[in-house]
């Protein structure tokens, strides 16, 4: 019936190892990742999802990347590990983000509760179909018959009791830990712990010739749950002051509850950083002021990057293109200086409209700037003009641009406002369709 069917024995040990490797990979999303054997992962994305642009984006990215390596996955984000687990495995859609999981979870079948199979079968014989059915039933008779597990699972799903997850830790990771004799909860005490951990960690990084790119700080609370802080840097960093600053900045995000009893700091991502590079990064060979400056700029970029995301911090660099909107590219804020600027024989406007906005024009002669134009409902008479500057389409990018071109004019109205207009045409300016746009303001 299926002649080319290949049968392979399940290799449970290899599966478990593969799942562990996958969990280490998923550390890219959050410092707290736990395996849920045989085929699940728990990722605590509290306080980490904004780095990916939100929960939905994080899940889409996760499922997309897994699909890329041949793993078909379903994902759900919910308020409790139990609910997320239930929705991911039994929900209707492959990627789900819910704010209030209660209602959705109530409609799911009993199997979503992670009970032993025989208990599920017996509950079903008693007429229970969904989690909602169980929730509406008095707890005591159920506990009497099925023991405490059933009640605990229900409470975990609905978030009435905490369900700590045991995060995986990469074996080769650089790590520092502190167990505290007395639980602490004040910001000052937490900062003292951070200073001790970072000093310890930087010593280890130096021994191995590494610099940290991502740091994860896990706070163990006395109630058995954990709080995590993750910070990233734009370049490998081994300066204790720099790292302390980044972590202390995030301390207000930690809810110590009844107290913190232990803390673990891990350099989840570390890259080689030799002594010469340290010198280069802080600008050795120049005077002390330059040394100070470079260190502060890297520090500033990391502080801001951890607040708004490193992709929102950038420099502008020239790109070889005549088309104005393609002539600027974004490069990382700490990238090495780029050499040449933009060719500047023609003035460029300080503000560029993206996309260019169509305007109505009154043009008397074909190869001249318009006499007047109407933009955003305001009609302006053109008093002076410069141009045209002809810019051809880049046919190597898109076929459509083969015969397209723009003629740019700088025009000035009576009040002195200066605008950047262009006439776009295909084929030839005489025969092809001609349209006018405004692309920028000179000021």
């Amino acid at each position, binding site marked *: 019936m299926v002649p080319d069917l290949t049968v392979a024995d399940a290799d449970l040990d290899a599966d478990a190892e593969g799942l562990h490797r996958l969990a280490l990979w998923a550390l890219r999303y959050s410092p707290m990742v736990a395996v849920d054997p045989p085929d699940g992962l728990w990722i605590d994305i509290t306080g980490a999802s904004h780095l990916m642009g939100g929960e939905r984006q994080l899940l889409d990215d996760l499922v997309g990347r897994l699909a890329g390596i041949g793993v078909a996955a379903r994902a759900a984000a919910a308020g409790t590990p139990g609910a997320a687990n239930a929705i991911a495995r039994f929900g209707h859609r492959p990627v789900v983000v819910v704010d209030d999981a209660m209602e959705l979870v109530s409609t799911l079948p009993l199997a979503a509760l992670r009970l032993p199979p025989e208990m599920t079968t017996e509950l079903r014989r008693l007429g229970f179909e969904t989690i909602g059915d169980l929730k509406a039933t008095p707890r005591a008779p159920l506990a009497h018959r099925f023991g405490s597990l059933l009640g605990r699972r229900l409470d975990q799903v609905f978030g009435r009791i905490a369900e700590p997850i045991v995060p995986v830790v990469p074996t080769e990771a650089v790590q520092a830990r502190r167990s505290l004799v007395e639980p602490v909860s004040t910001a000052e005490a937490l900062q003292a712990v951070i200073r001790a951990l970072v000093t310890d960690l930087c010593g280890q990084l130096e021994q191995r010739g590494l610099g940290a790119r991502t740091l994860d700080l896990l706070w163990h609370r006395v109630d058995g749950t954990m709080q995590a802080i993750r910070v990233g840097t734009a370049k490998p960093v081994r300066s204790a002051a720099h790292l302390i600053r980044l972590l202390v900045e995030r301390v207000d995000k930690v809810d110590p509850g009844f107290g913190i009893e232990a803390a673990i700091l891990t350099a989840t991502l570390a890259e080689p950083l030799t002594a010469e590079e340290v010198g280069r990064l802080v600008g050795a060979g120049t005077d002390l002021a330059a040394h100070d400056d470079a260190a*502060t700029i890297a520090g500033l970029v990391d502080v801001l990057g951890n607040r708004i995301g490193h992709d929102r911090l950038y420099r502008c660099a020239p790109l070889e293109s005549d088309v104005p909107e393609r002539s600027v590219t974004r490069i990382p804020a700490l990238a090495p200086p780029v050499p040449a600027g933009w060719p500047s024989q023609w003035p460029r*406007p300080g503000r560029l409209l993206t996309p260019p906005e169509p305007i109505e024009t009154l043009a008397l002669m074909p190869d001249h700037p318009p006499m007047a134009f109407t933009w955003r409902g305001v009609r302006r008479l053109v008093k002076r003009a410069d141009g045209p500057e002809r810019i051809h389409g880049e046919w190597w990018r898109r076929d459509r641009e083969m015969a397209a071109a723009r003629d740019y004019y700088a025009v000035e109205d009576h009040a002195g406002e200066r605008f950047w207009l262009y006439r776009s045409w295909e084929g030839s300016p005489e025969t092809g369709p001609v349209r006018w746009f405004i692309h920028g303001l000179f000021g």
Partner: protein
Amino acid sequence: MRVLPFGLAAVDDRLPSGGLALGAVHEVAEGGDLGVIHAAAATLFVAGILSRMTGPVLWCLRASDLFAPALSQVGLNPNRVIYAEAPDEKTLPLLIEEGLRHRGLAAVVGELAKLPMVASRRMQIAAEHSGVTAIILRRWRSPAAAAAEVGQPTAAVTRWRVSARPSSPLPASGIGRRRWRVELVRCRGGGTGEWDMEGCDEEGRLGLLANLADGSSSRQGTLVEEPPRQAGLRIGA
């Protein structure tokens, strides 16, 4: 007080210590219906000031309509500018303040619609402490919003208004060098003034026109002041 002179005596005379105070908050707005929204002339005015400073600049913005080639045409090297794009309006003042605490920067530019007194005072304190100069480029969503906000008091030490004016006449047809009406609307410890200027050249310097809009200066006879070749940093009293 450390200052950055404009190199134009008529302007510098109105400013305490003879130049734009460094380590302080300055406000720049643009006049006109288009100006309050796009602030294109005010942007180049600011870029011209920055290009006469040395050191890195943090430019905090929200809309990414800034066109870097134009900034480089008034002398602002793109390598000096780090842009920080805030995800929302309320994050912007926080980014500006954070930047102002870093001594390694020459200046922080913030494109803001709203500048409450408290936020501006915090910026002024941070700027005084670190010596980093803050320039707040006011950008409103509509002329109506601008009209409601423009007179609100802030802790900025100076407030400028820049408006586009018809360009210098040329013998042939075409657009000459850009011209602005530059107004010093408010200045703590200094005077106010109004000048017609030629916009920034390729090194960020302004040029004063002979037919001054501000009559008082012309009566004193300080008409055309040739800008010095190098208008660098000066340590004043």
